[in-house]
């Protein structure tokens, strides 16, 4: 029997990474008997191995709980878990619009962090009712009062509405459930109006095709309903609707206000994109729900199989990943140094790492990845504009009128003693100061505008090391701005290596070039001959290093008992050599192609 809308609460949890979101979700599941203690594993809703290992949430996993509240009513609580990383902020924003309320979880030992704020602002923008929860109050170093004061300061929510809990011990968690049913408004919407359901995720299942996660705003969906996806215009017939408890369980219908899933023989997730609106195929809604846009890749890198015979396998693996990841893009790329591969587009660095790791782990591929770069808008003298996401494809300087690069607004939250170090870091990275705000507990919110290219290298590592781990950051894209940029080429033994080219700020090109060849000198092993390394701009060499020739490489002893072991040692070494890329007569290890990532140590 369908739950009356008045007894439905849809909510999400927003938190900075490691502030205990997944643990709180685990406790809520237990307290509502959605999952028994016996079935309980840590971070139930993080379904991918990768998520558990990294302790981060990449993909959302919604869940429906049933809760008998103190007022005697039985409520349907739909939790929509959200990814906690800036790469997936678009997915976060779509999940938020599927809810009416948000638990804002803040670690009592850490306080308000950059992502807390970014998520909070998104939640406020989505018009959600915010319930702040100070978590981890059981820890000896917890400062719940101070953190509550910070929360009050940034949210304006009165002190008495802030909850205190320990997701680990369960203390205060029932109060969280009570606040949810008491404070979060029930969903509005009309079950009799034309169907409008928001797609907030879609997942590829090899047996059932695409499973689409929806929040029904108006109307109702049942098996057999003919639906249309408004962005693509495609029409399907629904096979199954259901909810997550936390495993998928079929139901008769999903009506206005409810959250669940549907399957409809949809072949890949690109056909049911996050943010799209589902309506009836006939006499559907006139206008989709607001705010849809396709998630656009921000970071690009070349992926090449170490073994060039496995190109086709890489292609098929990327196609399979794309079934489940509409934001991953790829197109063939040919590199003189690395052979045939793909230029891939990612939402951000974490997304890139995840794709790389899945290709290696799930598909058993051995990859060489080139250093990530951003997409540039290159305005040519002939009044045309090209998008360049690969440094080696940059048109000749003479034909370029100007280049624009993507900029982001970065928010950093840091204890005030590191403020100077953070400002210095942002200045070094071509940043422009935007604003600053002091918070309770001696912390500062600092905002800068920076080229995205400066972030994709090792900005996050530098931020962490210069603040001794205390700074947190978040960023959002703010558009394209002109830059004074040049292409830096690297020559190994006199031959240009296209996969090592990069686009850099002219002012710092010399410094970059010097550091890059210096780093390559350490990474590329000695060869039989001396190998000169050069960095050049437009044919002019700006830095040079030399790898001296190898002089001694021999096993001291080789008698009867040594031969088998030493032969095996050499055979392993030979295997390692095979994985290197040969440019001219020089063998270059895979790491070299990522060397530009960390030039500031």
């Amino acid at each position, binding site marked *: 029997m369908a739950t009356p809308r008045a007894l439905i609460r849809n909510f999400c949890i927003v938190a900075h990474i490691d502030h205990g979101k997944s643990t709180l979700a685990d406790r809520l599941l237990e307290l509502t008997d959605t999952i028994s203690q016996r079935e309980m594993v840590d971070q139930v809703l993080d379904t991918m191995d990768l998520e558990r290992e990294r302790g981060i949430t990449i993909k959302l996993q919604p869940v429906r709980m049933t809760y008998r509240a103190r007022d005697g009513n039985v409520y349907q609580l739909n939790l929509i878990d959200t990814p906690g990383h800036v790469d997936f902020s678009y997915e976060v924003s779509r999940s938020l619009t599927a809810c009416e309320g948000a638990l804002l979880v803040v670690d009592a030992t850490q306080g308000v962090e950059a992502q807390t704020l970014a998520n909070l602002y998104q939640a406020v923008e989505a018009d959600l009712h915010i319930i702040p929860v100070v978590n981890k109050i059981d820890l000896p170093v917890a400062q719940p009062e101070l953190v509550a004061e910070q929360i009050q300061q940034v949210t304006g929510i009165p002190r008495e509405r802030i909850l205190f809990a320990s997701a680990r011990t369960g203390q205060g968690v029932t109060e969280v459930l009570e606040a949810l049913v008491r404070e979060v408004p029930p969903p509005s919407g009309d079950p009799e109006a034309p169907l409008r359901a928001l797609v907030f995720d879609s997942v590829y299942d090899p047996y059932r095709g695409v499973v689409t996660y929806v929040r029904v705003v108006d109307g109702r969906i049942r098996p057999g309903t003919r639906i249309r996806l408004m962005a693509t215009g495609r029409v399907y017939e629904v096979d199954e609707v259901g909810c997550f408890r936390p495993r998928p369980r079929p139901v008769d219908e999903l009506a206005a206000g409810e959250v669940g899933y549907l399957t409809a023989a949809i072949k890949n997730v690109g056909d049911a994109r996050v943010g799209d609106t589902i309506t009836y195929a006939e006499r559907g809604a006139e206008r989709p729900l607001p705010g849809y846009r396709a998630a656009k890749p921000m970071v690009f890198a070349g992926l090449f199989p170490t073994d060039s015979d496995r190109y086709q396998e890489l292609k098929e693996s990327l196609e399979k990943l794309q079934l489940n990841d509409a934001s991953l893009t790829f197109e063939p790329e040919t590199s003189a140094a690395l052979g045939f591969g793909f230029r891939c587009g990612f939402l951000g660095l974490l997304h890139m790492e995840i794709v790389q790791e899945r290709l290696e782990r799930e598909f058993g591929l051995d990859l060489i990845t080139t250093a990530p770069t951003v997409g540039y808008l290159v305005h040519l003298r002939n009044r045309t504009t090209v998008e360049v996401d690969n440094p080696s494809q940059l048109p000749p300087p003479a034909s370029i009128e100007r280049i624009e690069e993507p900029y982001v607004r970065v928010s950093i939250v840091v204890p005030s003693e590191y403020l100077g170090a953070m400002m210095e870091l942002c200045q070094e990275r071509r940043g422009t100061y935007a604003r600053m705000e002091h918070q309770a507990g001696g912390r500062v919110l600092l905002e800068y505008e920076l080229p995205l290219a400066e972030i994709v290298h090792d900005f996050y590592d530098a931020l962490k090391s210069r603040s001794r781990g205390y700074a947190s950051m978040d960023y959002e894209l703010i558009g394209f701005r002109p830059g004074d940029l040049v292409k830096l080429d690297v020559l190994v033994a006199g031959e240009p290596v296209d996969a090592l080219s990069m686009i850099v700020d002219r002012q710092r090109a010399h410094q970059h070039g010097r550091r890059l060849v210096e780093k390559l000198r350490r990474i590329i092993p000695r060869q*039989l*001959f001396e190998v000169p390394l050069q960095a050049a701009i437009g044919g002019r060499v700006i830095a040079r290093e030399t790898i001296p020739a*190898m*002089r*001694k*490489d*021999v*096993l*001291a*002893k*080789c*008698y*009867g*008992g040594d*031969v*088998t072991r030493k*032969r095996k040692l*050499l*055979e392993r*070494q*030979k295997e390692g*050599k095979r994985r290197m890329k040969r440019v001219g007569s020089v063998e270059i290890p895979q790491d070299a192609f990522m060397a530009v990532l960390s030039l500031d140590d």
Partner: protein
Amino acid sequence: MTAVGGTAAVGRPSPGRPRVAIAGAFRLVPFRHLYLHIPFCRHRCGYCDFNAYAGMQRLMPEYQRALEGELEWARAALPFAPLRTVYIGGGTPSLYPPELAERMLAYLRATFEIEAGAEITLEANPASTDPRRLAVWRSRGVNRLSLGVQSFDPRALTVLERRTDGARAVAAFLEARRAGFENINLDLIYGIPFQDRDTWRASLERAVELGPEHLSCYCLTFEPGTLLTRRRDRGLLPEVDADAQWEQLQVAVEVLAAAGYERYEVSNWCRPGHRARHNQAYWECRPVYGAGAGAHSYATDGDRAWRWWNLAHPRAYLAALEGSPGPGPGPAAITPVGEDGEELAPERARAELVMLGLRTVAGLEAPPGFEDRLEGLRRVGLVERRGSRWVPTARGLDLHNQIALAVL
């Protein structure tokens, strides 16, 4: 030539462990080289990863009986021709009490035919070398002594944890000369942490002053599992980088050439006519029977080859022979004490032949199929042609791994 027919198996049949079977009708090339392993040491040095054990000396008599059991079995089961070389290595063979050494050497003479002029080497630690032992060894036919000096530099000896000193090494050498040894090798090690070119040169010059017939200079290797390696990994010892190692190697090349020694293998130098004949057998892939705990054997029918090795721990070795000294499980098994082994297909056997042959200045007449690879190595200056042979260049000796990587 003795024929071994049918199928022979290497290694004891233990579940889950691959056995190497020597299959088919063939004729093994008879063994002319014999290695005996004596695994006992008074103390285990920090750099050593050999099959050696301290504190087990009381097993020596029992071990000697087992060794004889294995040899008796081998003599009956496998083809032997008159021996050209015998090498008694360790461990520390000089630790054997004189009576036991006497028994071992007498047993050898009684069991195997030994060619006139055969090279019979015994490894000795200067710390356990004395006139009485030397006299026994010499009178029972040992004609080549290999002294593990390693260094004359006290600091280097401390790093290596050798419990002896340069004075003892000199005394042992002089005692050996007095006992009538006319062919003596000194083992030295370079590339030791805290040693530099000058201290190495000093050690080397003291060795040269003694006038040995043969010198082995080994670069210190950090072997996995040794105390030395653990110390390096914990940051207690610096590693000597490849350039510094090379510079010390060049010191050896210069000093020894000036003193009239020929570098005939990567790590071996000698006066003319004194190449170590037993070790040549390894580098030329000639059959060597290895007896004793952990000893390796190499056999070939001229096409394929087999290598197997005995149980390494002395107690395991003893247990395997207990109750069945003499012929083991019959002529069908290669050895009653084998732990494991491998069969080398003809291509791989040939690759080993090329790889090992190019460790020596004599080089080799390359078997067919290696022309392109050798030609490639010639172009980069690591090998050259001398008549019908391929030989390594001086640089090729220093970069032998690069040769090995190309031919394997």
